[in-house]
């Protein structure tokens, strides 16, 4: 196995009303090919920001991203943040960036990667879909990018196939529906279809079950598990729910206040190998989970 992603010393700072705030403070983690890495943390722990930085989607807010994000498509690692240092300048005691040039550079680096090499499923599935386009059209957009050789009918057929693969009850009807006509769980399934139709190397799922009902959440998590069964895809799974992460991931990192407090293989954790960080232990306790060392 070779490393697909290697994040080193990632720092993200934002300007807020109360001054500059460091939301991610020197985070490092890596992801092997075919591995599922769970990132566990509560709101404000910086887990979402870290993954958005990998995706180049931190957005145009005033603030800076520093560190290294090494992504290896197969031809050797490429630092996705390498160019960005050029638009960051010190002003006074802090660093500021030229927003527009920053955005341009991010686009130049990320455009060839988005979709094909890495893609994402976000929380709030209802807001992840274009409200004015049918679900089918949005899946077809992905299909067209992945398989440009297909004609109209072929694309529509593939889109329906994908909708069926994410276990929609009536894929044909969903194909011609709009986001507001579907429930949150259905929207999330549609988003997963949109993302997977591009056959990405790395899928980033950012709290995909937050705000969904208990049973629906279980279904979505199970769907992820099934879609990952062949292990050809790597995934970063971000969640605040320790059960989900333990269920899906091979390895988890636990984040708190912008820092990684623990990295542990799920098998070790379940077997009770080694000491747990007190914070991880409290998360386990809150979820009524106890793993004892097998003697």
């Amino acid at each position, binding site marked *: 196995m070779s490393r697909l992603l290697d994040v080193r010393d990632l720092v993200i700072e934002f300007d807020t009303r109360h001054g500059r705030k460091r939301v991610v403070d020197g985070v490092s983690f890596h992801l092997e090919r075919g591995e599922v890495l769970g990132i566990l943390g509560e709101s404000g722990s910086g887990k979402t920001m870290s993954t958005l930085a990998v995706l180049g989607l931190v957005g145009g807010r005033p603030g800076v991203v520093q560190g290294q994000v090494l992504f290896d498509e197969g031809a050797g690692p490429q630092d996705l943040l390498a160019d960005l240092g050029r638009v960051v300048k010190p002003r006074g005691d802090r660093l500021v960036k030229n927003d527009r040039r920053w955005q341009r550079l991010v686009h130049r680096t990320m455009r060839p990667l988005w979709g094909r090499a890495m893609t994402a499923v976000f929380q709030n599935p209802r807001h992840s879909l274009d409200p004015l386009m049918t679900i089918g059209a949005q899946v077809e957009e992905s299909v067209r990018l992945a398989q440009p050789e297909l004609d109209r009918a072929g694309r529509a057929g593939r889109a329906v196939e994908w909708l069926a693969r994410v276990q929609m009850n009536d894929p044909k009807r969903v194909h011609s529906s709009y986001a507001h*006509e579907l429930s949150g769980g259905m929207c999330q399934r549609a988003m997963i279809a*949109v993302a997977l139709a591009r056959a990405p190397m790395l899928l980033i799922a950012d709290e995909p079950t937050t705000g969904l009902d208990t049973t629906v959440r279980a279904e979505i998590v199970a769907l992820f598990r099934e879609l990952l069964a062949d292990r050809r895809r790597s995934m970063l799974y971000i969640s605040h729910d320790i059960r989900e992460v333990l269920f899906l991931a091979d390895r988890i990192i636990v984040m708190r206040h912008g820092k990684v407090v623990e990295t542990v293989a799920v098998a070790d954790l379940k077997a009770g190998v080694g000491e747990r960080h007190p914070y991880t232990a409290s998360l386990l306790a809150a979820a009524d989970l106890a793993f004892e060392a097998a003697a």
Partner: protein
Amino acid sequence: MSRALRLLLAAAGRTGGALVLLMGASFVIYITIRSAPGDAIDAISPMGTPPQVKARLLAEFGLDRDPLTGYFAWLFRSARGDFGDSLVVAAGESVMAVAWPAFKITLILSGLTLLASLALALLGALVLGRPAGRQQLLTGPLYVITSAPSFVQAVLLAQGLNWTIHRYWEQLNYETPPWYPIPIYTDSLMPYVFAGLALLLGDGLFMDFFNAIRAELEGLRDAQFIAAVKAKGARTWGHIARNMLVPLVSGYAARLPIVLGGVVIVEYIFTLEGAGYLLLEASRERDFPVVVGISVLFTATVIGSTLIADVLRTLVDPREVARGG
């Protein structure tokens, strides 16, 4: 129900609503006429109106009947486009014959001005994006200039225009190209351009439009679904354009009344013989059939533009139909 049928029903419902509104608004106008102090007909008709004309007015506006039947009599006449005859401004001619050509000028002038404002605001929002510190300071003076009333702008521009014409344009004669849609009453297009400019720069219209569009655009760029489109590797501009359409059209319709307010005085300053000019002339001469006719036309335009925006929104945005009429 099929989507097309639901759309049709929604559009029909909206049109019905607009008609009811128009009726209500015309009722307000009618009641205003009836509330004239003293003997209504003496109070509202110009001095020296002959008794037979007064009698005719009395009948035309149903002032001799109770308010409700009088209103409906007047409404039916108006609905047929018959607002009576002008008393002074174009004595003896029917109001519509005078007002309609003038109204076309006003409509085209304000419509095009607003379109130019929209285009400029959109362009500015696309080019400038998020305002940085220094830019914000620059917008200050621009803000002051553009919040000045359009008539103040017009006065300043008219002074400039006079001066310019004196200096350079006096001998030139402008020829209207045959394809040109605006009826030209003066020899030069310049007054129209200047009037448009005054409207564009005045009444806080541009900055308001610009800020609204910029906020909308920023909101869209930060929207989660745009991030999702990026993440799947597709181009975002198509999605952004589609989602901008509704706010642009609504913004256009919402600002038309502002422009229609400003156009009245600006036309007067540049002596463009549009409906605003006519309105002020008629008002000065107490030629109230003309005043009432033009008021109804303006009101109908406001309601009509809102209706068009509503229907368009229903066509573009599938959530509208779901929300129900």
